[in-house]
């Protein structure tokens, strides 16, 4: 009996869906139960990833209609290369994180019940799988909200802490508003656009009213004739809705709040793959459902991507909380993915499918990469959190000596995310740069000129990200322990190390063997743009990546890696043959002798130059408090320094909305002032108004 990829995907979803109630019922308090649950989750995820990978590799499309759902609109499922690719991304990271969770959750289970964590974890992964597999608007939205709700409960896991509650609430509200926008978008695509709007009141006369539901399958939307105006409305709504989930600036406010406070394995999934479902949605709506669109859609996506990337990187640089830093960096990386997507859309709208494919590959590759390294980094941050109980970097330091495995693995993540060869982050950034540089192929003069400017912003982003992760690794792992408690830190358990090693290995593999990966994922742009780049990209064998033509640009991650490794090894050996005496001595520090750990650069001081230079982007509040000495007023005995960096979008955009809501609430409350005679007047006036209305 052989299974099609869709069957396998469905099985994996079923495993996850069943695991959730099973975990809830079984209590899953014992370590053994935790292990079994997460093993099952790992197996289910791997199955999903495998199914997705198969679908991508074969470029096949499988679809099915389920028995559940509305009678007139049963759930439709479909596994095509696009969904297959995202299945792979989600499944792969879920697999790794599930392994990680065995150790991580067992540690949590020692001091609090974890039933909720396991149940919603499984539901969360199931939700993501279903979002990707859904092939009609209803199923998509159901899955979308299951995913959102499950992750909401996961953010709320440590619900006794106020910041968790605040973050979870904010997250859920933004997610829901986004979901509403997505619903509207589908409604536009299915309802308004396809069937001419029946006049008010005449709809009742339409005996076949339920047939309109067929418009809500994605298949119908694909074949629908949408007027450009409505298509734009649908796109803007979808972009808003998915953007809210992806954390595009200015819809990002929830992200740096929610991702850090969730348990780290969940943060890894949320940042690593949940954001990708939003990217999936954008790709699905634009390239698959609408298909024909003007260039400015792409320009909008590109600009939002650039803004998110730069601001995300800047804010990541400013954070003192390790997980918050990672969360902001997710905003940045989503921005980079959107840059690729936007470029692809621009190229596609100018009928350059090959270039669109290249940009799309860049975006998709970055999706995959970001899943791996952000997953790795959050797992590393989780290990640190687990070992030290701290998220504040300024209270850490010197962990490299305590966490012999976590440190190098975390470093791999940092190097990857900073876009340094030969790791994977560089490949996708390089591809994005290449996509930028192909802009002269665009007929429109002004866009042709403006696009390369974006490349500079991308470069800025990459450099800022590098700085942010030097800070992240340097302050956390290097130097001296800043607080005495850190001394007791220990390395994480075996499964956690294994999972991180797996992710790190994948980071390297994806960086060293890009042509193989691109060859595999080529069916996705083939499906979306009708063109592929594998012919040219892998033209010179697996070692060389030549996206357009070899004389245009080429890169070999493998060769770079090997040469660096070789030279390092040779030099090391050469120098080792000679002498090689190393003496350990006290720190020199230009002869300064009273060095204390508190003199180290902290995360705030490390970020100071960049904070000063880009001060226009932040709302910075610095406060220096001097406690003067009694004897000499000029020489303070103590100095207190406090800094708060706030997000201006909150002040400018969200605060007014909240205020307006409460203003309206007060207004609504005025209807109810308690006196029965006023209520009778309402009734009286209502009758009279209605009677007049009737006349």
């Amino acid at each position, binding site marked *: 009996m052989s299974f099609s990829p869709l069957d396998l995907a469905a099985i994996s979803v079923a495993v996850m869906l069943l695991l959730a109630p099973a975990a809830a019922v079984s209590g899953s308090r014992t370590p053994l139960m935790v292990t079994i649950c997460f093993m099952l989750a790992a197996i289910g995820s791997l199955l999903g990833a495998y199914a997705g990978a198969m679908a991508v590799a074969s470029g096949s499309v499988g679809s099915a209609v389920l028995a559940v759902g509305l009678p007139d609109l049963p759930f439709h499922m479909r596994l095509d290369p696009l969904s297959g690719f995202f299945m792979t991304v989600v499944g792969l990271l879920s697999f790794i994180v599930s392994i990680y969770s065995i150790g991580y959750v067992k540690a949590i289970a020692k001091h609090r019940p974890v039933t909720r964590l396991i149940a919603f974890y499984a539901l969360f992964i199931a939700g993501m799988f279903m979002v990707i597999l859904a092939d009609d608007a209803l199923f998509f*939205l159901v899955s979308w*909200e*299951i995913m959102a709700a499950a992750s909401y409960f996961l953010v709320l896991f440590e619900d006794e802490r106020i910041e968790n*509650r605040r973050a979870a609430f904010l997250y859920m509200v933004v997610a829901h508003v986004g979901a509403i926008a997505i619903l509207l978008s589908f409604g536009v695509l299915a309802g308004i656009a396809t069937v001419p709007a029946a006049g008010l009141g005449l709809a009742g006369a339409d005996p076949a009213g339920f047939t309109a539901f067929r418009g809500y399958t994605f298949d119908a939307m694909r074949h629908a004739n949408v007027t450009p105006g409505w298509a734009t409305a649908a796109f803007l709504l979808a972009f808003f809705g998915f953007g809210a989930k992806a954390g595009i600036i200015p819809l990002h406010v929830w992200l740096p709040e929610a991702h850090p406070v969730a348990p780290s394995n969940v943060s890894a999934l949320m940042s690593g793959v949940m954001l990708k479902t939003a990217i999936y949605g954008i790709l699905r709506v634009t390239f698959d459902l609408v298909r024909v669109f003007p260039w400015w859609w792409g320009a909008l996506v590109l600009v939002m991507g650039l803004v998110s990337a730069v601001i995300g990187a800047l804010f990541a640089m400013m954070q003192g909380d390790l997980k918050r830093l990672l969360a902001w960096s997710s905003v940045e990386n989503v921005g980079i993915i959107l840059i690729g997507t936007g470029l692809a859309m621009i190229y596609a709208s100018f009928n350059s499918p090959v270039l669109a494919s290249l940009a799309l590959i860049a975006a998709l590759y970055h999706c995959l990469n970001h899943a791996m390294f952000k997953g790795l980094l959050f797992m590393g941050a989780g290990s640190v959190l687990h070992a030290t109980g701290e998220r504040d970097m300024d209270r850490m330091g010197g962990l490299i000596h305590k966490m012999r495995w976590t440190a190098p693995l975390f470093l791999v993540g940092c190097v990857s995310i900073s876009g340094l060869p030969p790791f994977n982050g560089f490949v996708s950034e390089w591809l994005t740069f290449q996509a930028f540089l192909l802009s002269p192929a665009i007929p429109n003069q002004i866009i042709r000129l403006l696009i390369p400017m974006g490349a500079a912003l991308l470069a800025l982003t990459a450099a800022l990200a590098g700085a942010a992760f030097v800070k992240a690794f340097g302050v956390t792992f290097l130097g001296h322990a800043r607080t005495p408690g850190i001394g007791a830190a220990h390395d994480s358990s075996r499964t956690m190390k294994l999972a991180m090693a797996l992710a790190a290995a994948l980071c390297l593999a994806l960086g060293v063997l890009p042509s193989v990966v691109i060859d595999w994922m080529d069916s996705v742009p083939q499906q979306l743009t009708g063109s592929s780049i594998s012919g040219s990209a892998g033209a010179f064998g697996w070692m060389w990546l030549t996206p357009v033509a070899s004389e245009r640009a080429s890169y070999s991650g493998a060769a770079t890696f090997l040469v660096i490794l070789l030279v390092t090894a040779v030099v090391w050996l050469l120098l080792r043959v000679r002498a090689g005496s190393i003496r350990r001595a006290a720190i020199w520090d230009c002869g300064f002798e009273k060095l204390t750990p508190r003199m180290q650069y902290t995360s705030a001081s490390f970020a100071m130059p960049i904070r000063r230079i880009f001060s226009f982007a932040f709302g910075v509040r610095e406060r220096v408090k001097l406690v003067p000495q009694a004897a000499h007023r000029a020489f303070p005995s103590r100095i207190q320094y406090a800094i708060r960096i706030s997000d201006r979008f909150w002040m400018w955009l969200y605060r007014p909305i909240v205020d307006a809501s409460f203003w309206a609430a007060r207004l609504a409350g005025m209807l109810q002032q308690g006196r029965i005679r006023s209520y009778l007047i309402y009734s009286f006036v209502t009758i009279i108004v209605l009677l007049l209305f009737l006349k």
Partner: protein
Amino acid sequence: MIGMNTSMMLLILLGVPAFAAVVLGFVGDRKFAPEINIAGSAATFVAGIGLALEVLERGSMLAGGKFFFVDAFNVYLSVLTAFVSMTTAIFSRRYMRREREHGRVGHVGMRFYHAMFQLFIFAMLLCLLTNNVGVLWIAMELATLSTVLLVSLYRTPTAIEAAWKYFILCGVGIAQALFGTVLLSFAAEKVIGEGGEALLWTNLSAVSGSLEPTVLSLAFVFLMVGYGTKVGLVPLHNWLPDAHSEGPTPISAVLSGLLLNIALYALVRCKVLVDGSTQSHHAGNIMMGFGILSIVVAAFSLLRQKDIKRMFSYSSIEHMGIATFAFGLGGPVATFGGLLHMLVHSLAKSAIFFTVGHASQMHKTQEMSRIRGLFKGNPLVGWGLMFGVMAIVGMPPFGIFTSEFLILTATMKDAPYLTPFLLLGLGVAFAALLRRVQPMVSGEIPPYQKPLKVANVPVLLHLALVLMLGVYMPDFLNNWFHAAVELLK
């Protein structure tokens, strides 16, 4: 049930609660009174199922000399009413016993409570099943009157105030409905002829095309304001938050879960007649207007609530607004959505009130700022409340999402310019409810929280049903709804 005819079934369905009311009036505050209450409601529910099976088999029918009329629309509401009454009776056993122990209710109160509970069920079922528009009105008034004193059961000043407002405002409102009914019969008499048959709904709907449109639209204004007051539509809603929040929680559950539905049912029945007569969408437009206004005002009102039951009463206003809007919009999809919405809202809202009742008993307060740590304190109450709220705000996979999805899609198709208002209401209500509920369920157990034995069957049963309706709709229900849609066209 085999061999029993429909009239018998109806007799049982209506007779059991009426009889139980009398019995409970005599039993009073004995130990087994709650059990009798449950048994009576369960028997009613069984009879309701039997009736439903009949209808399923034979389609809509008249019974009892045209006095009763059963079709797809009212039979599903009857079963729902009987079902929620039963679960509420189960819930109220533990709940009221606790209230009795706390001394909030005396033995007269308990006697009264049980008898009136059954009388209330009787009135609602009569409302649904009668074929006579006049009797419909009487039963509606009876339903109000039987609950008025239950609202003031605790005798606190606020409870009395709430009951007084409920009594006066609904009394005035429903008097308007009577005026509308008089006008209806005036119009009907000219077509059907004089005599008692002029108020039979089956007759009216048969000749609705030839009824005088001016009279009917005049009648509809009064019917709208009258029954609309009972539905709790803004700006006629002011009694609702008071009455629903001050009475005992089981009563809040049935008031929010059932009585509003019944009033809406009456309104929709009248709307069908008016539409048939005027051949325009006036009635629908008026209903849509009230619906939108209710949704938006209620949603914003939710933001500033402090009392937990009061908040959920506003949520009921919002949801009744949604259903009214759906029926006003008309068209198969919206009507289907409206029917489904009545069903799932009723189930979800009563489940919420069950948990709310337990939660406020645990904390001895209805103030939300004092209710904390329900997840830890009592997982069933905490998670029941959380999932109930998730359902009520329209999160999939719960059924309310499905019905709202249907209504929204229909709105987008037929009245796209109203969609933003609808969504504004839904979005604000979502944020407002979550904002309040989240701190109540999460966090540490406060010192003043007392553990409590809870009735878990009703909550779980309701939520399971709501969940099921979100992902899977049984064929028979689908057929019913389709038939009802056909009826309400």
